[in-house]
């Protein structure tokens, strides 16, 4: 503990309590980046609404939409439908994207990849051998095979999954949790975003995906970037030593402190505290990104890419280190799953990027006793079509966007391990049982963190907004631990 910090924190608390009412939300000192002053954040009262099972979330977002047919939704029966037209009764009246709506035929393309059934609590989970490491964790994860969405294009699809609405501008899930729960640590942001690139066609990402929308700006996600400046402007300039920075901050605090005595504004004290937190972050972030204290065995577990900053493997290990340091919402994006032209060529590479690192993350969290209190979510914005986009041959096919079913898995705090939930039809085109909307998934995540999704609301532009929108949504009771 840092006595200067504590005294500032204390002064600030008192100052704020004295000087600011509800209107001070976010304007006065505020919770800031790390919800430093969580007690005064102006966040909602009574949250969590009930005892949480998880303290934090790691969301492994697979951007571009992984093919469910080639990963978790095994359809061995499709082999006999090779190159046959998708029956119109299965296709129904669903809209297609402009990319395949003009195709003369919609021929079925069974997966060419082998699947292995891994033991779980329901007699085994078939997982594509492209994700062998992940498959080996079948006893820890819960696969939802019956996710669906209305969105058929990437921009609205990702935006819906991350913010609960297809049009940009709503707060993201991480911002909602930062707002609702505040920060659990003093030195790091409560909501962190990390991006890695895959090998396939890359779709754009948008900063609004981790935006705060109408919530106070400090709840927006902070992007940690690869390289020596993981947080924007974190590093002092070359030629400035830590002692120089300390000198500068001491001068600042002296003059600002005198000013606070004159004008009586608690905000000045809050500002001093923010400078001190920035100073501590300058130390805590490099310590966070420095893997030299990791045992060799751990690094090996994540695979060779873990040594490349900005890779998915690196970001997975970063996620575990952030979980240890109580970052509330850790959002990864792995780009490049948009396999229109060649699932067969590109999917194996893409899976290779993620398979070993994400399995290692689960193992690592488990062996450190963190998995029970960390909710891990894996998935993309929609699924892919059973029919082939472009030319079909026994060794080559592409798949178009498919919103009506896709697979997502969860693991850790609050979730039953070793099960799967929901089923698709024999073509993995429609949902046969237990559909789960994005809002149901959001409600489930919030539930694991002790939040009733109906009660975490924010008033803006005349409405009480919530993450889960206006249509009925509910946590998936059957998968809750």
């Amino acid at each position, binding site marked *: 503990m840092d006595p200067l910090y504590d005294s500032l924190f204390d002064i600030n608390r008192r100052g704020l309590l*004295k*000087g*600011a*009412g509800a*209107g001070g939300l976010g*304007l006065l000192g*505020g919770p*800031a*980046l*790390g919800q*430093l002053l969580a007690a005064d954040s102006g966040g909602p009262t009574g949250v969590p609404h009930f005892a949480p099972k998880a303290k934090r979330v790691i969301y492994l977002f697979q951007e571009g939409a992984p093919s469910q047919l080639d990963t978790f939704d095994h359809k061995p029966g499709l082999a006999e439908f090779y190159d046959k037209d998708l029956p119109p009764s299965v296709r129904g009246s669903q*809209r297609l*994207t*402009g*990319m395949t709506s003009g195709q003369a035929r919609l021929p079925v393309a069974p997966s060419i990849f082998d699947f292995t059934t891994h033991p779980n609590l329901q007699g085994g989970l078939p997982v594509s051998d492209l994700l062998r490491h992940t498959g080996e964790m079948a006893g820890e994860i819960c696969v939802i095979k019956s996710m669906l969405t209305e969105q058929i*294009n*990437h*921009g609205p699809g990702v935006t819906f999954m991350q913010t609960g609405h297809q*049009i*940009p501008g709503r707060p993201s899930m991480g911002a909602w949790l930062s707002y609702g729960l505040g920060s659990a640590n003093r030195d790091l942001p409560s909501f962190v975003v990390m991006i890695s*690139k895959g090998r396939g066609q890359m779709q*754009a*990402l*948008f*900063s*609004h995906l981790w935006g705060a929308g109408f919530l106070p*700006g400090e709840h927006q996600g902070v992007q940690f970037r690869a390289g020596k*400046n993981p947080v*924007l402007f*974190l*590093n*002092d*300039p*070359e*030629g*400035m*030593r830590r002692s*120089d920075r300390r*000198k*500068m901050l001491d*001068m*600042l605090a*002296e*003059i*600002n402190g*005198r*000013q*606070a005595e004159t004008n*009586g504004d608690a905000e*000045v004290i809050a*500002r001093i505290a923010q*400078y001190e937190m*920035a100073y501590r*972050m300058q130390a805590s972030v490099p310590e966070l990104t420095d893997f030299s204290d990791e045992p060799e065995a751990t690094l090996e577990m994540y695979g060779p890419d873990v040594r490349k900053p900005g890779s998915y493997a690196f970001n997975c290990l970063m996620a575990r280190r952030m979980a240890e340091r109580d970052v509330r919402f850790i959002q990864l994006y792995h780009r490049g799953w948009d396999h229109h032209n060649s699932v067969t060529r590109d999917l194996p590479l893409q899976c290779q990027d993620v398979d070993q690192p994400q399995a290692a993350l689960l193992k690592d969290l488990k062996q450190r006793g963190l998995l029970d209190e960390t909710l891990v979510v894996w998935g993309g914005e929609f699924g892919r079509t059973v029919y082939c986009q472009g030319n079909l041959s026994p060794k080559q096919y592409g798949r178009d966007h498919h919103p009506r079913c896709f697979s997502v898995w969860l693991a850790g705090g609050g979730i039953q391990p070793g099960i799967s939930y929901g089923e698709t039809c024999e073509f993995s085109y429609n949902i046969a049982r237990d559909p789960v909307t994005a809002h149901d998934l959001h409600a489930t995540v919030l539930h694991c963190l002790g939040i*009733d999704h*109906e*009660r975490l609301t924010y008033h803006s*532009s*005349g*409405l009480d907004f919530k993450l889960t929108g206006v249509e009925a949504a509910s946590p998936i009771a059957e998968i809750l631990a």
Partner: protein
Amino acid sequence: MFPFPRMPQSVLQRAAIYLSAGIALPCVAASPSPSYNRDVRPILSANCFACHGADAAHRQGGLRLDTEEGARSKTESGAVAISPGAPGASAVWKRITSTDPDEVMPPPESHKTLTAKQKGTLRRWIEVGAKYEPHWAFTPPRRDPLPAGAGNPVDFFIHKKLRGAGLEPAPEADRAILLRRLSLDLTGLPPSLEELDAFLADRAPGAYGRQVDRLLSSPRFGEHMASAWLDLSRYSDSNGYLHDVMRTGWPWRDWVIDAFNKDMPFDQFAVEQIAGDLLPGATETQVLATAFMRNHPITDEGGTIGAEYLNEYASDRVETVGTVFMGLTFNCCRCHDHKFDPLPQSDFYSLLAYFNSITERHHENDGSPAYPPLIEVASPLAPDKGKAKVMIMQEAAKPKPTFVLSRGAYDQPDKERPVTRRPPELFGAPPEGEPANRLGLARWIVSERNPLIARVAVNRLWQGIFGTGLSNTVDDFGLQGEYPSHPELLDYLAVEFRDGPASGGGRAWSTKHILRLIVTSETYRQSSDVRTELAAADPDNRLLGYFPRRRLSAEQMRDTALFISGLLEEQMGGPPVKPYQPEGLWKEKANQPNSPTGHYVRGKGSDLYRRSIYTFHKRTSPPPLMTIFDAPDRTGCSARRYHTNTPLGVLVTINSEQFLECARVLATRTLKGGGTTDERLTQLFRRTTSRNPSAKDLKTLRDGLETLKGRYSATPDDAAKLLEQGDAPIPEGVDRAELAAWTIVASTVLNLDEALVRN
């Protein structure tokens, strides 16, 4: 109390009575009886109207509590909700005080509860007759003559309420602080040392007024005022969505700056932006103004469905026009009737019908900087910078048949419910003698039949100065909006704006006139020292017993540092520029890294030092120096900014190349200024904060400077490295160690609370 007409049954009739008969309602002064508008409606609206309000489809138990008729009628269960004078005979009172979970209102599943105080207010209101009042914002604003000798109307109303609470205003602020405040509020920049000294030396009467005149006529005024308008207008230099390619709307941005500088009457400003293309003999500039309507994001993602997005764009226009010119939340009635306001779903589509029949088309994978309809036009501010293609409005040959969309879904028009173009029915019949097109709508919007526009506009001006609107819900003047802290003042200013000065002689719709009225008031000129003795009675300082301090806006933060250091390049208008930005921010998000918005190519020379309003705005990756200080990403209309105080912001002002370069150049400037160390420190301090440092402040800086000088003299390599920030050259013959020490001191001063805050 004044007698109010009883509520007629239909909102149409109701609006007609108030608006056409011109019945104005008094603003309610503090009184022991609860006022419906001030005290009761906020409780009912927040807790009851969602199920017992305007939305017929979702109304519960047949009970409507937002109208007097509804509250007096028998409900489905046969009870009377509100029996005036008799709480015991009122079902509302029984239900809100019930302890039976099946009976109590609001019901437990709503997660809403009434406090004892709220229940008390409702009881008292019923006891004294349960009088309803029309919603304050839907009645025409009125300006009653002030008593003789009342002085500035701002002070008249603010002081009246303060003194009513037994308080006196604060004394006037220090003159130097006052000039800095005024200069920042009107131009976005602090005063120069020369301007400051001239003002301090001007002891003649009217000195302050002369500064107000000088600053209002400065071309910097428009550059400052335009920021908030660009937020409202969701202006960006890129299209947004997946590809987020570059667009070239900047001549319109310059048109806005120019309009503010010329004090274009706000009604004209509104009409030209909504329908300039339809004005008889429309000039190129009037057509350019309509880019306002097309500033929304546009997608050209492959596979997207045209009808879906064209509907989205037209809907964005409804919501933006609704927020900007009416303060109404039309987004709430896109899918169903508004839950709180008397805005049926058909109102949304009746407005949409004005906006969905232009000659636009959906494009896929086009990558164009502008989609038709467009004009090729030069900037009114920088005609020598060439022409750019700007997206504008142009009517299609025939209006598109328009229907209410079921649940707001673009592909589910309800053929049973066609709509015609008309303003919201709340405000009465469509205007007669006006064309049924955008021009007719625009003329209605600026007419007296729209009671909202003037209130909404002056409320935003007030927010721009005091940080909080007289009603703090600047984007919602509906039933869920905040009842104003000073309703009579809001109305006074609204009429003063709409009709021109009460004193006669001035002109109507003058933004500069309203701002002059505000900044010449004693209320504005008060000291900003926090009066802790007021905290209990007025924790949010809504009574304005002292001037509210506030962190500078994003643009002001950067522009001020540039100005103080002398780096600011005051060239107006033209294409957007690309100052310092950390590498890779665009590329890591883009899906077309080779497009002009795929990777950021930083500018050189003067491009690095232009005012922030000219910084290239990429919607999916907006400039971090702006967003970290709460500038919105401009995906939609935004009427308010927060002013947060975060470690991320700290890192910008202590470590970004832009701010470090400012510190170094400011240090150079200070060294070149000559004098003793204390004289130099004093000049540096004054240049930044406008005030003289105290002896203790000087000692703090002097001691720090000496330590740093010693340290950098001993390590010349560190000094050389520290000075490598930014492109600005280091003058010959400067001692590097000394400059390094001064750079850190200058950075310290630029980071003082007083430098980042408007005192």
